[in-house]
């Protein structure tokens, strides 16, 4: 019976039975049931929410327990998940406090009116930040020179930005930083602690840790306390914004945006904090000294150049093209006449790079002329413009030679030859021929001049002059200091011809004195020549008036006395008178005289 019932059942309600079976399997199979429920769960939860909050109340306990359980079982993942948010939460709270604090500072700083403060105010206004923030920025005492972003697990370098080109092997550095972090953490502290910083020399290594990566910042200087929090903020930002990059090793060091983000946190500026007033005085003094020193140096350099330029320009025969300073000396380029006098230029101050040239400076031409005639002692030349007047004593052949030489001198166009032929040798020969025995005469012959001194026989003298004048009509004869001596007969004739008219026999006039002196001289010469003779003085009168023969004698005696006074031997002198002629009726002064006569 039961079989038949089953058969009928299966015929009548086969589909329903199959559906029931399916449903049973779904309910009884946990996996399938879970699958079914999960599909409607979110909808059911939505529906289950009531206005009275009973559903939430019902859920609160399980959720609370579940969260506590999750914390205790899997603390790290909860922390990792919360970390990007928590930091921001905390900062927001702290930021508000700091804002208040900054506001207070701002008020204080507002009172400052230094030039720096004014400048910073302007910069703060342009940057749309508070003055206090600008002060903070400007008083940074540190630099962040390198930032390494490193995978926390394998120590591979994710990204690096920096200013130091010496760091070549960034892979090794990032691995070592990872090792250091692990090693110190492993050796010294609990596993939950992270290495925060390390210091070596002038460099600080700051570590900021995140769940997937950590950052090492290389800092020079003394960062402020908030630097740590800034670094932590940075790693959190990186995790929040570049989480995909941190886990994709294929994109390590190829993300420009990440690089830019990190680079913006490099701090390369270092400005010292100056809360004290800057003492400008030494700086100003130093600046003045420097400017003064430089000015003086430039001035003295200029002066030296000016001096050397003046000196060089003043040298005849030098044409300057340029003067420059080279190797501590003045390099002068230009042209120099070979006979220019460069002795004023000191070799340790000046170097010359010159070409020779022929100068037409007047002084140079003069030098050239003098050099040309230097062989001739008695020749001189005078330059007047382009004319040369040459004078002096030369032989005939030399005269032409000189003229030709001078015409070849550059700058000389006209020669005025005033050279005189020097006849001194010829004259000497003639004098020797004419007067082989010069006796007391001294002759000096130069060029065309003969100077005779001493004493010379009158006839010889006349003959000499005559002989010299014939071949040398232009000859000059100087006879200062020469005594030309008369012949014996000439002396006798001179004496015999002398009649001295003595109207007043007591006083002699000039003419009478001269005449007498001549007679005395001549007589002395005769005496000197050992001529034996007597001098007869004959007195004469016209016997008119008081005149008589007696006066004739007196005249003669007067002259005799004068002659004896002059040194003539009295024995040589005889006196006589010429008797008066009685037929004279008029006074004849011409008869009032004394005549002289030499007798043996």
């Amino acid at each position, binding site marked *: 019976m039961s079989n038949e019932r089953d058969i009928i059942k299966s015929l009548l309600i086969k589909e329903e039975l199959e559906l029931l079976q399916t449903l049973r399997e779904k309910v009884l199979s946990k996996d399938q049931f879970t699958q079914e429920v999960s599909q409607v769960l979110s909808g059911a939860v939505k529906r289950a929410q009531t206005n009275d909050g009973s559903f939430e109340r019902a859920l609160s306990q399980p959720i609370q327990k579940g969260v506590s359980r999750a914390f205790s079982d899997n603390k790290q993942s909860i922390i990792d998940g919360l970390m990007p948010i928590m930091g921001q939460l905390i900062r927001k709270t702290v930021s508000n406090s700091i804002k208040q604090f900054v506001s207070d500072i701002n008020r204080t700083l507002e009172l400052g009116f230094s030039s720096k403060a004014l400048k910073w105010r302007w910069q703060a206004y342009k940057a749309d930040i508070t003055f206090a923030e600008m002060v903070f920025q400007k008083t940074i005492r540190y630099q962040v020179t390198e930032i390494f972003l490193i995978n926390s697990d*394998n120590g*591979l370098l994710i990204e690096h930005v920096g200013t130091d080109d010496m760091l070549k092997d960034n*892979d090794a550095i990032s*691995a070592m930083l990872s090792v250091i972090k692990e090693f110190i953490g492993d050796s010294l502290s609990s596993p939950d602690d992270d290495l925060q910083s390390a210091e070596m020399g002038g460099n600080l290594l700051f570590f900021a840790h995140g769940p997937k990566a950590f950052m090492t910042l290389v800092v020079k200087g003394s960062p402020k306390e908030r630097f740590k929090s800034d670094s932590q903020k940075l790693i959190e930002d990186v995790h929040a914004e570049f989480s995909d990059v941190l886990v994709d*090793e*294929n994109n390590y060091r190829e993300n420009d945006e990440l690089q830019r983000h990190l680079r913006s946190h490099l701090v390369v500026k270092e400005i010292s904090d100056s809360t004290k007033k800057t003492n400008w005085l030494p700086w100003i003094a130093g600046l003045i000294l420097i400017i003064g020193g430089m000015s003086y140096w430039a001035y003295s350099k200029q002066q030296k150049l000016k001096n050397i330029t003046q000196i060089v320009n003043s040298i005849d025969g030098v044409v300057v093209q340029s003067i420059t300073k080279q190797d501590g000396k003045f390099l002068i380029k230009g042209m120099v006449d070979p006979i220019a006098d460069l002795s004023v230029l000191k070799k340790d101050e000046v170097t010359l790079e010159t070409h020779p040239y022929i100068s037409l400076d007047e002084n140079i031409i003069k030098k050239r002329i003098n050099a040309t005639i230097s062989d001739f002692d008695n020749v001189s030349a005078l330059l007047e413009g382009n004319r040369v007047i040459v004078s002096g004593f030369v032989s005939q052949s030399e005269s032409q030679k000189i003229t030709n030489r001078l015409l070849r001198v550059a700058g000389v166009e006209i020669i005025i030859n005033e050279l005189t032929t020097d006849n001194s040798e010829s004259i000497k020969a003639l004098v020797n021929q004419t007067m082989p025995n010069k006796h007391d005469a001294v002759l000096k012959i130069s060029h065309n001049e003969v100077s005779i001194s001493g004493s010379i026989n009158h006839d010889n003298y006349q003959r000499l002059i005559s002989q010299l004048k014939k071949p040398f009509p232009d000859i000059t004869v100087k006879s200062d200091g020469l005594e030309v001596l008369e012949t014996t007969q000439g002396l006798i004739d001179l004496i015999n011809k002398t009649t001295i008219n003595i109207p007043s026999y007591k006083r002699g006039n000039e003419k009478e004195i001269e005449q007498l002196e001549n007679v005395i001289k001549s007589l002395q010469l005769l005496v000197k020549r050992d001529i034996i003779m007597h001098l007869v003085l004959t007195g004469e009168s016209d016997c008119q008036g008081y005149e008589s023969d007696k006066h004739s004698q007196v005249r003669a005696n007067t002259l005799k006395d004068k002659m004896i006074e002059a040194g003539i031997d009295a024995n040589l002198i005889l006196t006589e008178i010429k008797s008066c002629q009685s037929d004279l009726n008029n006074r004849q002064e011409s008869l009032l005289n004394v005549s002289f006569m030499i007798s043996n």
Partner: protein
Amino acid sequence: MKKAKKVCLIGRFAVGKTSLVKQFISQQFGEKYKTTVGVSISTKKIQIDDIELSMVIWDIAGFEQDGHYTHYLRGVHGIIWVLDGTEPESFEILDIVSKSMPETKDVPSIYFINKCDLLDEWVVEESAVNDLKKEDHIVLKCSAKTGENVEIGFNKLAQLMVN
């Protein structure tokens, strides 16, 4: 294309880990033994097809101390197991590390049996070598002293890491 991979050398003390690295990096060998303290990092760039691969080599010291090395093996891309052909005990490290860090089995690896130049002192039997090879491992007898198979081994590992 540029890539960087972390390679760790695992092996007992004095098996020649540092010497192998030195041979690979600078083709030098020092007779004196200086124990490595902590970790020694070396890098070398090699070209594999169009990839410039920077191998960051972690020469980790003192695998006798239990567990301390686990930090250093985190995120490793390639492992060089260094065994000493004159010291059979050096093979024990394989089990020790595998047990403490089972994930190392999935990391591309090669096995250096070092000191093949010391023929008189070589004690490792061929069967032990074959056992390793059976597990599809790349096993190379090498010498840090002569350089035999050193560069070949590192290059093979690099190939495995890139592929």
